[in-house]
């Protein structure tokens, strides 16, 4: 195993992670909701009979503001380098949407929230999607 020390950002990534964890905590403490983004978006595209769309819109609005606030405060851009283009990107999007709807969660819901609640179901989901993602990147980068 070779570590990519040139790209390694443990302090910034830990800080970002703690911010995400505190956000998840506040959403549960104040509003009693799990901060799962696929679930929040899923309730927007196909609302349940109870409605409850308003808070989801507000959350997404905030999530869009967040990176802009970081850019303003730090005074430099946030790095975004795509890895997929052409037909690959929409296919990836479809798989992410389908998979998180069928698997009841994504990196935030199963990862940050499920693991913190010691949910066995979430731990299984995280293990499986991590393995599938690692294998996918391996196939793209190291085969063929």
């Amino acid at each position, binding site marked *: 195993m070779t570590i990519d020390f040139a790209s390694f950002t443990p302090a910034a990534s830990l800080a970002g992670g703690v911010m*995400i964890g505190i956000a998840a905590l506040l959403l549960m403490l104040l509003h009693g909701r799990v901060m799962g983004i696929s679930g929040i978006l899923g309730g927007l595209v196909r609302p349940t009979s109870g409605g409850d769309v308003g808070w989801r819109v507000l959350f997404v609005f905030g999530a869009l503001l967040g990176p802009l606030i970081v850019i303003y405060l730090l005074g430099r851009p946030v790095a975004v380098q795509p890895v997929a283009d052409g037909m690959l990107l929409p296919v990836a999007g479809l798989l992410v949407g389908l998979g998180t709807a069928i698997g009841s969660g994504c990196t935030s819901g199963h990862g940050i929230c499920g693991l913190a609640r010691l949910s066995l179901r979430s731990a299984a989901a995280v293990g499986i999607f991590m393995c*599938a993602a690692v294998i*996918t990147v391996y196939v793209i980068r190291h085969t063929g």
Partner: protein
Amino acid sequence: MLRSLTIIFIGALFGAGLAIGGMLNPAKVAGFLDIFGVWDPSLAFVMGGGVVANFIGMRLVQRRRAPLFAGSFRLPDAAGIDRHLVGGAVLFGVGWGLGGLCPGPAVSSLVLVPGDVGLFVVMMLAGLFGGRVLMARRTR
């Protein structure tokens, strides 16, 4: 009003955390997933920091009967590890590996590179819709 502002604040804290942590950069995500190549373990620190911060706080939250601005805590139903969970996680993992974007970062990076992630997000929302229709019709 205060209730709405707190939700916007929480969303912004989440989006800012993604940006600072490096989650908005698909190249960094691919570098994290590429454990058999030149590996960048940074995003394990995002996951670790997020889980530990949430875990510690949840000990205190769980002593409360109800959240501050809502009637009750809405936690997922305790279902087992079924074929939907496994199959869905596989599909999601493949999509995450292909595009380097999971749902939160896909949304938050819309303000940074709308042209690059716009189509991804549209297809992701279509997939979420289709998946929820499937799940509503499922037979257990």
